[in-house]
């Protein structure tokens, strides 16, 4: 009895009701799962639904290893063009070898299967530092994931520092576009081919919209965290705790003297929740400060050097590389033009000398064939434009990120001005 139950339950993610299947009876399977059984059908992905559990795991892993970049696998299911990510696990950063990595993944998935976690890998995630995640290895890995047929996979990119600063979760889902896959399959990325297929730096990756869906129990947990039922007494007692509030504030004032820092965040920091104190506090099961007051924080710094400065430095480096790539290409182009010129001149000379010979009554020399010409005037093949393309895409990502962050920054500044005027 237990066996048939296990056999027909690979999709326990969505079967919240109880089914007892005696034989494989497809009428008992909920309608929305039927498409999963149809292995022949090919459906294109339209959006990604992520469970908060997967998000929290990704965020935690990225935060712990900041600033190095880490990655891991995503587990879930694809249904009707929507990729549902229900869980994720981290992958160690120093694997011994390729085999170790594969073994780790296989073992992890097997263990997770025993507790009914979805065992199909639907993609992978990567954390990024500055926002310039467009690198060749990423494209290669994603290509290998998308290469297997009938399996859709996405790469989720999470930017830790951006999330913390902007107060807004930075999570994006990408797939490789079909044009890019076609071009790389043939292995040639010349200007002509890219023009034909229409590949630009903007459409290497396709972005998919992300939605967050929580289970009902998780919703209950979230509501309880935000609005606890009987916290009044505890709240009053913790408000009475002295010193931690003022010392933190003074420390902050001393630290950011030059930046205009809006201290609405400090006011909610009063309920101290750091690991430094050994004094046991009253049990507080709720969030001790409202979520996302970071959005109001004006100071642009994060751990010392301002992240904006770091991004600008990154842009500088990328621009240097961009110019270098452009110069390389021009050098090749000039070389090609010279060779073609010489070739044409040779053909012309041959033609005139033939005409002269005819005039003198001698036999014509045979016209040089294409093959002979090719052997004489060898043109180097065009260097692959892929690196330049990736570099440009990276540059675009960084600049777009900065531009988008200026809007909120401007708003916050005017808010600070308003606050100052009202308090003056």
């Amino acid at each position, binding site marked *: 009895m*237990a066996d048939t*139950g296990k056999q027909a339950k690979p999709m*326990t993610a969505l079967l*919240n009701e109880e089914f007892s299947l005696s034989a494989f009876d497809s009428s008992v399977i909920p309608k929305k799962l039927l498409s999963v059984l149809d292995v022949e059908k090919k459906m294109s992905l339209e959006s990604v639904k992520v469970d*908060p*559990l997967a*998000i*929290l*795991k990704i*965020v*935690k892993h*990225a935060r*712990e290893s900041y600033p190095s970049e880490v990655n891991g696998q995503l587990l879930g299911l694809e249904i009707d063009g929507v990729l549902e990510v229900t869980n994720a696990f981290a992958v160690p950063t120093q694997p011994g070898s390729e085999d170790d990595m594969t073994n*780790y993944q296989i073992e992890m998935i097997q263990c997770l299967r025993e*507790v*009914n*976690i979805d065992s199909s890998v639907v993609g992978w995630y990567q954390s990024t530092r500055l926002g310039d995640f467009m690198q060749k290895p990423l494209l290669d890995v994603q290509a290998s994931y998308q290469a297997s047929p009938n399996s859709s996979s996405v790469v989720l990119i999470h930017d830790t520092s951006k*999330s913390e600063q*902007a*107060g807004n979760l930075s*999570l994006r889902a990408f797939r490789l576009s079909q044009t890019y896959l076609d071009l790389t399959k043939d292995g040639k990325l010349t200007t002509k081919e*890219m*023009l034909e297929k229409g590949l630009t730096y903007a459409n290497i990756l396709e972005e998919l*919209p992300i*939605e967050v869906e*929580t289970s*009902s*129990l*998780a919703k209950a*947990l*979230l509501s309880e*965290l935000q609005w606890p*039922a009987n916290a009044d007494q505890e709240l*009053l007692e913790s*408000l009475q705790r002295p010193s931690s509030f*003022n010392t933190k*504030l003074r420390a902050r004032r001393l630290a950011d003297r030059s930046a*205009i820092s809006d201290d609405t965040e400090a*006011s909610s920091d*009063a309920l101290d*929740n750091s690991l430094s104190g*050994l004094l046991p506090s009253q049990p507080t099961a709720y969030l*001790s400060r*409202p*979520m*996302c*007051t*970071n*959005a*109001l924080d004006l100071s642009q710094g994060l751990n010392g050097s301002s992240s904006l400065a770091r991004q*600008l430095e990154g842009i500088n480096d990328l621009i240097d590389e961009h110019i270098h790539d452009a110069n390389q290409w021009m050098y090749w182009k000039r070389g090609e033009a010279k060779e073609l010129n010489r070739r044409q001149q040779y053909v012309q000379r041959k033609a005139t000398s033939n005409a002269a010979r005819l005039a003198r009554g001698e036999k014509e020399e045979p016209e040089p064939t294409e093959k002979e010409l090719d052997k004489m005037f060898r043109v180097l093949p065009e260097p692959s434009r892929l690196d330049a393309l990736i570099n*440009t895409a990276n540059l675009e990502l960084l600049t777009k990120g900065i*531009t*988008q962050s200026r*809007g909120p920054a401007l708003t*916050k500044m005017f808010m600070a*001005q308003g*606050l*100052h005027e009202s308090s*003056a």
Partner: protein
Amino acid sequence: MSLLNLSLPPLASNLVKSRTTTTATTTAQQCYIHPVVLFSILDHYLRRNDNQERVIGTLLGVRSDDGRVVEIRSCFAVPHFETSDQVEVDMEHHRSMFSLHKKASAREQIVGWYATGSQLSKYAALIQDFYSREAAPFGAVHLVMDTELTGGQLGIKCLQGAAIGAGAHPENCLFLPLAHELQYPDAELTALQAAADSTEGEGIATLISDMEQLEKTIEELRCMLARVSAYVDNVCEGKTEPNTVIGKYLMDMLAVVPKVDTKQFATLFQSHLQDILMVAYLTNLTRAQLNIADRLQRIA
């Protein structure tokens, strides 16, 4: 008259070891939980097999050197099977999962175990004993999450075991409560915010841009300010009982608003504004240039 021998777990961490048991030699006094643990427990509970009423699993985390402060960072599920006579815990699974986790995050160690349900399981003491041996030399922390929503709440309780009884058998264990607090690193807060948006409406939330998030936060701040000023007005008019604690707190908070000299503020404001506009202009210029370069190349 028979006496009940109740021994609280000893505080000092070293050579004091009871003769017959290998239970904890150090007590924890404070426990911090990461939100991912709670969600993980709920997810495991939702995916349990038909015949299970409760689920258990291992808690991973770090402890301070003297064992007093425990930080629970993550967890994983362990299959177990419970009947009225006996309980089976899949230790193989527990060991292999732990070694896998160790590869990914080397700092985390076993600090305890969790279970769901409104009451402690009959076999909690036995399982506690097993985990105490795993978490040696510190005692294991037991986290209970009430998934049956008694009293309309998901009660989260942290407990630790203490030996009790005339002879020290592992089955005799008294669970003492432990102060716990939820710890939210900033990045997780944003994730929780995104998830919390999905609790309103039909349960699905799309990720919004920074500007929209800022707008929402400002709106929330405005509501909070409205509530506080309504409260203050009521107190002034005598409609509500004044509470000195809240009053002092509000006073402190208002003192937080930075007092910057007007001229200095104006200079700061202008220079910051110029910086922002300059950066925006330069980056837009770069983007336009990239676009032009790309199109030119395609023509050539």
